[in-house]
């Protein structure tokens, strides 16, 4: 270990990971005057150079297909125009799956992590989501309630900016919203069809600002949020929290730093983080008073499990044995349909905000018996006159044989006449779904990797069946026909809402963290990503990651001030 150098400064807090959780912790702590070092396993981000917003496909000779025709032979990212992000496979950073299990683990190695490209869906959990066991006897209750988190939802929504409409629906609590953009024409049809089915179809709630705040310009409705937003009108932790926090003078960013292990002293407290400097392939240590793991749920669990010592033989903060357990992903199912009513409509600019301007929150929360499965799902919608890109017309050319003038006329006719629906539902934690250290495999830096075990249960399969029936009904009420439908429930991990692997709870025997996401076993260790989640409701996790991270950061700052950690 001769190459290990101890750097002199001791930071109040070392944060590992710069996504939604890490970014929020950095923002809150630096504002409170705390000295923070941020380790990011990927590189720095320069939005002005890295984002390809507003480019036309013909501005590159490969039109976005990739120089090696990646669009036609399997991609390794979300496409040439997408924001720098990540993928389910990263060279040199493998993971394994146990026999009989499938799981795909998405990682993002860049400042801001997945927030640079994520779907921006910002839904509060419902009050009942925090007490799932009390509600239906499945899973486990959270050690906190909606009332504990609500003030932090307020703070996060005010700071990052979320548009939406107040609806008074229990499954979709209202927040502090910017004015939402109106529905597109096909979305008006979807709303009318949903009304006939008694399904609420309301304004989406997305972390996109529609009036200027904190020096960020209002959305300019180019529909390209997924490419990264040069005006930072959509939330990303990199642009909205971390880069601005540099001005405080309290933040040190250490990019290309792959955390390997947490170093503890004789009292069992974390004193330093050992990491690989990827640029030199050497191991370094950074000293800290406290540490916040925000490396993503499974990466944080991996780091704890890899921090073994004689005092912590099962890994750090794991006397309960729950670290890595209770892994869940959101269920996913999608379908598209052709809507003849849209044929011949006046062509107009439907770019708006990237993603649907409307969505359907879970509507059978008080009629679960009618649904036929526990918990629920929400529905996201797609459609409109999108910028033509590689693959845009696949549906039409699969529906119609031939070539020549007739094909050209068909493409012209069908452009913008398809709608799509995607269901995103709650999985209940089960004993078959977890991650652990694979004893046989290490990554390119010698760090032991994760092995995944995963099984959907009949609850999730019944839910997806319900999605299929519902989407078909909506399409048919719109006068349309189903064009494409997913064969089966999504592959675990593909919805990229993996969480629950370092769960919180009141009992140290059955949870790793207390209600402030502080480790029961190690009082100067905190977790601020989706690992502490006790359940995975049908609301995308990011807003709740931010709210819990904000709450944890405030608590941590106060504990530092009091000298308790």
């Amino acid at each position, binding site marked *: 270990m001769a190459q290990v150098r101890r750097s002199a400064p001791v930071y109040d807090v070392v944060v590992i990971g710069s996504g939604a959780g890490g970014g929020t912790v950095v923002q809150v702590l630096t504002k409170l005057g705390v000295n923070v070092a941020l380790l990011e396993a990927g590189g720095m981000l320069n939005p002005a150079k890295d984002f390809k917003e507003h480019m036309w496909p013909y501005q590159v*000779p490969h039109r976005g297909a*990739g120089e090696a025709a990646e669009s036609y032979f399997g991609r390794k990212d979300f496409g040439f125009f997408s924001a720098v992000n990540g993928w389910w496979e990263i060279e040199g950073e493998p993971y394994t799956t146990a026999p009989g299990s499938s799981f795909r683990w998405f990682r993002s190695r860049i400042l801001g992590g997945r927030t640079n490209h994520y779907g921006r869906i910002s839904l509060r959990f419902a009050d009942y989501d925090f007490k799932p066991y009390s509600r239906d006897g499945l899973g486990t209750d959270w050690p906190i309630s909606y009332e504990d988190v609500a003030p932090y939802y307020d703070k996060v929504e005010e700071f990052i900016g979320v548009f939406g409409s107040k609806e008074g629906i229990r499954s979709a609590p209202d927040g502090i919203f910017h004015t939402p953009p109106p529905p597109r024409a096909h979305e008006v049809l979807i709303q009318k069809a949903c009304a006939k089915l008694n399904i609420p179809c309301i304004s989406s709630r997305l972390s996109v600002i529609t009036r200027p705040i904190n020096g960020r310009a209002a959305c*300019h409705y180019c529909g390209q949020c997924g490419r990264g937003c040069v005006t930072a009108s959509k939330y990303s932790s990199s642009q909205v929290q971390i880069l601005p926090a540099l001005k405080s003078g309290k933040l040190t960013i250490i990019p290309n730093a792959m955390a390997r292990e947490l170093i503890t002293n004789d009292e069992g407290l974390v004193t330093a983080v050992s990491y690989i400097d990827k640029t030199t392939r050497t191991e370094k240590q950074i000293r800290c008073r406290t540490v916040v793991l925000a490396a993503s749920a499974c990466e944080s669990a991996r780091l704890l499990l890899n921090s073994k010592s004689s005092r912590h033989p099962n890994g750090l903060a794991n006397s309960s044995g729950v670290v890595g357990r209770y892994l869940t992903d959101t269920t996913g199912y999608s379908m598209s349909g052709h809507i003849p009513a849209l044929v011949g409509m006046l062509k107009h*600019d439907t*770019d708006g905000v990237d993603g649907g301007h409307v969505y359907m929150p879970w509507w059978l929360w008080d009629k679960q018996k009618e649904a036929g499965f526990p918990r629920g799902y929400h529905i996201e919608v797609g459609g409109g006159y999108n910028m033509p890109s590689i693959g845009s017309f696949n549906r039409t050319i699969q529906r119609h044989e031939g070539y020549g003038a007739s094909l050209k006329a068909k*493409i012209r006719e069908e452009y913008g006449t398809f709608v799509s629906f995607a269901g995103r539902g709650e999985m209940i934690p089960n004993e078959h779904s977890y991650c652990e250290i694979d004893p046989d495999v290490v990554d390119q830096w010698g760090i032991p990797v994760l092995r995944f075990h995963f099984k959907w249960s009949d609850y999730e399969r019944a839910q997806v069946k319900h999605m299929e029936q519902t989407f078909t009904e909506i399409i048919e009420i719109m006068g349309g026909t189903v064009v494409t439908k997913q064969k089966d429930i999504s592959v675990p991990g593909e919805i990229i809402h993996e969480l629950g692997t370092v769960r919180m709870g009141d009992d140290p025997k059955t949870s790793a963290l207390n209600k402030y996401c502080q480790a029961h076993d190690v009082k100067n260790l905190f977790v601020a990503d989706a690992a502490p989640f006790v359940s995975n409701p049908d609301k995308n996790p990011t807003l709740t990651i931010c709210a819990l991270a904000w709450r944890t950061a405030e608590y941590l700052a106060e504990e530092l001030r009091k000298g308790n950690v």
Partner: protein
Amino acid sequence: MSEVTRRDWLTALGAAMLSGGISAEAAQHVHQAVAEAKKPAAGAYKPKVFTAHEYKTLQVLADLIIPADEVSKGAVEAGAPEFIDLLCSGNSQLALIYTGGLGWLDRESQKRFDAVFVEAKPDQQRALLDLLAYSKNAKPELAPGINFFNWARRMVVDAFYTSPIGIADVGYKGNKGMAKFEVPVEAIRYALKRSGLG
């Protein structure tokens, strides 16, 4: 509609920049990104992968798949052959699909019409493509040609509709930005009426 012109939008972005909304660097990026691409000089393209004959065959095939019509010009004008050649130059598997497919087309044309594909008469060319394009004509011995035709059809469509010609053809109106997002009332009324939901 309060759709703004690109000039209006860039002016708005400039104002946002002055008020500290975005950096000068970011604004510069926006200016570059929205700049129209220069059209490549016609006739100057030298194929990277294909022989002159193969490239000529590909051009004829591309314009048969997406020909000029009363609305817009065809696939060659939209740069489809260049696009396919470029991608083949970066992917040997794709290059094999095309060189093999173009060779198959010539041999089949020779057999049937005693002329390579580009020298066959237009109605002969279409007669051969009809065998590949419609499932009712599919025969096992045509499989290599059908596979190739499916590749060519898909990629010619992609190339055409990602060009300025194809984008204008389908009537995409966006990538301009708007000060405020609005939907033409006329469009909503039309769709509601036709759907029977209005």
